[in-house]
């Protein structure tokens, strides 16, 4: 029962990273094992860009679409950046919850939870592949959109990179909360609906927030995706980080507050499922 090769340490940073890597690798293998689904997802991006381009032709340029509000820019410039980056919220809200849901359905949740792995490691790692995939999809979306006329010649890469990190940090807690709900109610449908509806209506994906009634603007202001999209549109327009500092700070504060709260709620939901004996139910 013993081997001649020495056993590596089973705790610490290296072991933690090995677990993250194992979860990432599992998700990559599973995703690539459905080649048809994988290919269709990329085709969907092309269609999304084309639809956005056609809709944009119906709407005249407006200063509302410009991050600075100074010059009139085309709707495609506004919509394409939003559609490209709103994926991060969709990815966050879906991937964590789907990871839990898949584990319930495949019967792996109990055995995974029986390993000496911390809950934050398990839940946060479950979206690493999803965010990686989303970065690739976003890049492809933008590349296709450029072919259709999106102007990215002034991009501020530092602002983009910072907002990429902040967006992942701020929307991930929402995904963890969604996963908590999936742990209890065994469904992800309500989460998916809320993610799409909230981003579309209040997050300013399809129309600028300042065109909404004040009450709805307030709701939009509370959503991380609103500030994230503000940052990405600014980055696309070449605005430096200092120009969108308030949005960046909002995302940092939201991350710092929401992340521990969401992890605490997730731990509570797992605890509840353990008490009720529903870990393996679906």
């Amino acid at each position, binding site marked *: 029962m013993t081997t001649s090769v020495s056993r*590596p340490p089973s705790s610490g940073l290296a072991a933690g990273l090995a677990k993250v890597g194992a979860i990432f*690798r*599992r998700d990559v293998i*599973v995703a690539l094992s459905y080649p048809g689904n994988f290919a269709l997802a990329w085709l969907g991006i092309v269609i999304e860009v084309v639809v956005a381009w056609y809709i944009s032709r119906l709407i005249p340029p407006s200063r509302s679409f410009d991050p600075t509000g100074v010059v009139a820019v085309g709707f495609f410039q506004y919509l394409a950046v939003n559609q490209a980056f709103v994926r991060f919220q969709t990815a966050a809200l879906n991937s964590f919850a789907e990871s839990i849901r898949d584990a319930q359905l495949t019967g*792996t949740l109990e*055995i*995974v*939870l029986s390993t*000496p792995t911390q809950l934050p490691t398990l839940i946060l790692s479950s979206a690493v592949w999803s965010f990686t995939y989303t970065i690739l999809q976003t890049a492809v979306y933008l590349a296709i959109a450029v072919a259709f006329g999106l102007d990215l010649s002034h991009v501020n890469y530092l602002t983009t990179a910072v907002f990429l990190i902040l967006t992942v940090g701020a929307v991930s807690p929402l995904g963890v909360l969604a996963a908590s709900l999936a742990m209890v109610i065994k469904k992800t449908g309500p989460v998916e609906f809320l993610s799409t509806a909230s981003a579309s209506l209040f997050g300013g994906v399809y129309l600028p927030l300042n065109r909404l009634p004040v009450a709805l603007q307030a709701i939009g202001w509370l959503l991380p995706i609103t500030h994230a999209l503000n940052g990405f549109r600014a980055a696309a327009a070449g605005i430096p980080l200092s120009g969108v500092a308030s949005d960046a700070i909002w995302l940092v504060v939201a991350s710092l507050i929401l992340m521990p709260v969401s992890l605490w709620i997730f731990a509570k939901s797992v605890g509840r499922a353990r008490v*009720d004996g529903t870990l393996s139910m679906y």
Partner: protein
Amino acid sequence: MTDAMLTVEHVDKSFPVAHGLGAMFRTLAWQQIPRRQVLFDVNLRVARGELFGLLGPNGAGKSTLVKLLATLTVPDRGRMTLDGIDVEREPIKAKSRIGLCTGDERSFYFRLTARQNMEFFGALMGLSGKFLQKRIDECVELVDLREHLDTRFGGFSSGMRVRLTMARALLADPAIMFLDEPTRAVDPVHATELRALIRRDLVERAGKTVILATNLLDEAWELCDRVAVVNHGRIVAMGPPRELDVELGAVVRYRVTVDEVDEEMLHRTRDVPGFRDLRVVRTEKGVDLHVEMEPRDGGLGALMRAVSWNGTTLRDFRPIEAGPLDIFRKVTLDDDNER
């Protein structure tokens, strides 16, 4: 038994009868959700290196007890320790001592190969690199799956899946193993090999503590140092199988060979105090009466009188040793009758 590997003290467990969104709203509204109690004041003490069986009918509470010990559910009351570690207070530490073989063949990723599955679970157990690869090779070899290591798990038969579950439980070389029906769906040859692996390799050679939950009486009797019979959430009998045989003396069986039988003889046999069952088998030597009865004073004499009442010649008479099934029937039926 001072060196306890596992202790369970006064453990109760219940589950709510309603789940999901409705139950969540009821909880938020401070409404009490009715619960169904599945374990009642369970007490156990398992020694280091012991192979301990949990035996009971379906729904008796065996799997719930295993899940409690594997930290997958929590007790309403009571305390459990593994290797001196409080399971509730230090679950991560406790988990690092555990190897869990659930018998649930769904507990793998169907799109991954056996090797990829083992690499994934091995990493979560804290193993990596060459050590992990070596352990995977060793463990799949033990369950005779080496040739199938690069086959997708979805292509495995039920028996192969269960065997891979056993290999996974062995990966981290745990001090204590929880095996929940480890030979379920496994063909007889591999089931025999798995039993030998459990008894000979894990317990006798490696000195592991094994908790075996099973419905298979003969398996428990053959393998276990001690057995606890669980019924309706209570431990109704506990001890080494051979001692249970003697102490409980559940039923006695006799084979009586006579020349011929008639209705009156059979009627008188059925009237013997403590009579339970009678089977008549005609053979070349005569007629065998397989009689099952409760061990009562005077019972044997009454049986002798019944079968020889009209001068029938008794050709042979043999007591048949009580088996696990008799013990199991006895303790579960007695418990049911007391309810």
